[in-house]
């Protein structure tokens, strides 16, 4: 079933947008129009349909018009021309009340910079859509609680957004969108502001949630990896024009033009897959002030034979192995200072996999990914270097 259908949608910015459409139809480019008339072309003749339950990713670089396009879908930006059908009903030109009802019941939006209300608690933020609808307090509490549970933030109802990390804030943003139980989720670069690891985690969780809820999701991103991971189908935008729509396979194997090919080429080359893409959170770390026994227990709990030592700021200090630690235990020493091996292989997050290979071959420990301040971002198990090269996810 077609949930959303977008037909010949244009968005022109400027004083006389209607006059520009004939120029576009004559084949003038975005630059020419800007130079000659001072009008900006945001979206140029967009056409696509999204099926119920589908994740439809719109991908493009900044300035490609993807954020304008998604805002046309709930008319945060008024399209200049064209039709947008939601469940067969054209929402372009519908009256104010109908539009309000559609925004309240049918769609919800998640924003790049979270856009949470700083003066509301997390619970109130999540219940915002319901508050606007005039739901009573009890219903609001109940549904907000359910939505927060769904995104794994149970117990944070009374916190304020600025007390949470970025990842948690975006969970609140997602919960706020889910609380009204809309059919359609509009996600505008929803994970782009998050750290790579948190981002990956959120992508995985979105897929898990989606498997359960079967919403229709329009997801905007500038990141091809994200598009390929999430999208059932992907639309690639350039200068306001949708240049190709297809499944990830179709996009990878049959790019429509050079622009798409350039994008996709990068994916095929192992060179662009970087350390940050294949790193994971370490199973456990010990801090320097922890004793030997703590280190041993942590290794046993995580089922690993060596453990990284960090300081309070997560700067990497070295690694200790279970064998050394056990030997130390027999001697009855509490501090593991003497057995720390400081020769730990490290790398930066944007090192390509190809360059990681020699390091992986040389070491018997996982490789630590550190930032410029030598702070630990994640680790790469040696096996994942190989699977990364072979193009296997995880």
């Amino acid at each position, binding site marked *: 079933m077609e949930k959303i259908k977008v037909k010949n949608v244009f968005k022109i910015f400027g004083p006389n947008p209607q006059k520009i459409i004939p120029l576009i139809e004559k084949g003038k480019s975005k630059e020419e129009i800007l130079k000659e008339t001072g009008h900006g072309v945001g979206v140029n003749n967009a056409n696509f349909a999204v099926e119920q339950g589908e994740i439809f990713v719109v991908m493009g670089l900044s300035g490609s018009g993807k954020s304008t396009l998604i805002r046309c879908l*709930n008319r*945060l930006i008024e399209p200049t021309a064209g039709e947008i059908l939601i469940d067969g009903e054209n929402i372009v030109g519908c009256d104010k009340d109908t539009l*309000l*009802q*559609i*925004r*309240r019941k049918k*769609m*919800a*939006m998640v*924003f790049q*910079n979270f*856009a*949470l*209300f*700083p*003066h509301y608690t997390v619970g109130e933020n999540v219940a*915002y*859509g319901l*508050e*606007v*609808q005039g739901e009573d307090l009890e219903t609001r509490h109940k549904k907000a609680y359910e939505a927060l549970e769904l995104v794994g933030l149970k117990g944070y109802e009374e916190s*304020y957004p600025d007390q949470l990390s970025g990842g948690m804030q975006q969970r609140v943003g997602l919960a*706020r969108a889910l609380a*009204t139980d809309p059919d359609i989720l*509009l996600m505008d670069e929803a994970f782009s502001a998050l750290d790579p690891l948190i981002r990956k985690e959120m992508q995985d969780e979105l897929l898990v949630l989606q498997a359960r809820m079967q919403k229709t999701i329009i997801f905007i991103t500038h990141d091809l990896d994200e598009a390929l991971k999430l999208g059932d189908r992907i639309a690639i935008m350039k200068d306001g024009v949708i240049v190709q729509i297809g499944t990830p396979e179709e996009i990878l194997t049959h790019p429509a033009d050079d622009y798409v090919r350039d994008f996709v080429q990068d994916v095929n080359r192992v060179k662009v897959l970087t350390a940050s893409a294949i790193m994971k959170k370490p199973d456990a770390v010990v801090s320097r002030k922890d004793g030997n026994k703590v280190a041993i227990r942590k290794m046993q709990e995580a089922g690993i034979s060596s453990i990284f030592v960090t300081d309070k700021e997560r700067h990497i200090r070295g690694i200790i192995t279970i064998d050394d630690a056990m030997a130390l235990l027999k001697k009855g020493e509490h501090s593991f200072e003497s057995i720390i091996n400081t020769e730990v292989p490290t790398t930066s997050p944007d090192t390509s996999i190809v360059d990681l290979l020699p390091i992986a071959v040389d070491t018997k420990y996982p490789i630590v990914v550190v930032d410029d301040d030598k702070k630990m971002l994640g680790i790469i198990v040696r096996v994942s270097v190989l699977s990364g090269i072979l193009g296997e996810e995880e």
Partner: protein
Amino acid sequence: MDKLQIGIYFEALIEWLTNNLEPVFEGLRTGILALIEGFEAFLLFIPSYVLIAILVVLAWKIAGKSIAIFTAVGLLLIDLMWLWPQTMQTLSLVLTSTVIALLMGIPLGIWMSQHDVVDNVTRPILDFMQTMPAFVYLIPAVIFFDLGEVPGAVATVIFAMPPVVRLTNLGIRQVPEDVIEAARSYGATRKQMLIRVQLPLAMSTILAGVNQTIMLALSMVVISAMIGAGGLGEEVLRGVTQMEIGKGFEGGIAVVILAMVLDRITQSLGNTGKTK
């Protein structure tokens, strides 16, 4: 070329207003006077030490210990200088002017924030109100409202209202665009947006405007005294005109103390609004 005489049109306008709108002015006069006298009667009904105690507790709760101590010492000093009744008279005038200025100014500021046209029209009027020397409208005010506290209050409202209008407008316009967008995307109406999102987020800025308005109202005390508004202004004025330097100084000190107490308390009000 002949001298361009804009002044005569202004005179004609004042004369027309005086002749035709007298019942309106009379009504306003009665209302404003009732407000001022109400405040005054209330403030003077409470014994000075009780009121000082109340204000100190208030300062403590809102602005902390050091401001509370300052309030106590300052107000006691006023009482010991035997300037308490005059201070309360001045405070009544300031409170009345502030209440009127806020009742008109905050809605006007909100209106400006919602419509650019209103904003553009109002701005020059506000400039006018703030920069036109007060004496210029003091005389018409006396013609409309007679001598006494009422024209003083009216002149004070004209002079003190612009900051709260401007800062209300500014505060609402400064609410981050992404938050507005989020509220819109969830189907908030304009009214819902204003009450639950824009006003709360603009509150600390609006309170800064309230603070400014109170301060400006206090700065009009001496000028209002020239048309018989009484209070501390009269003390200062008498000091100046009769060369009683000491007396003028005492009145001046009382004004400063009152200003600082009101300023610190209202300022902290704005800051506590900012943290949450």
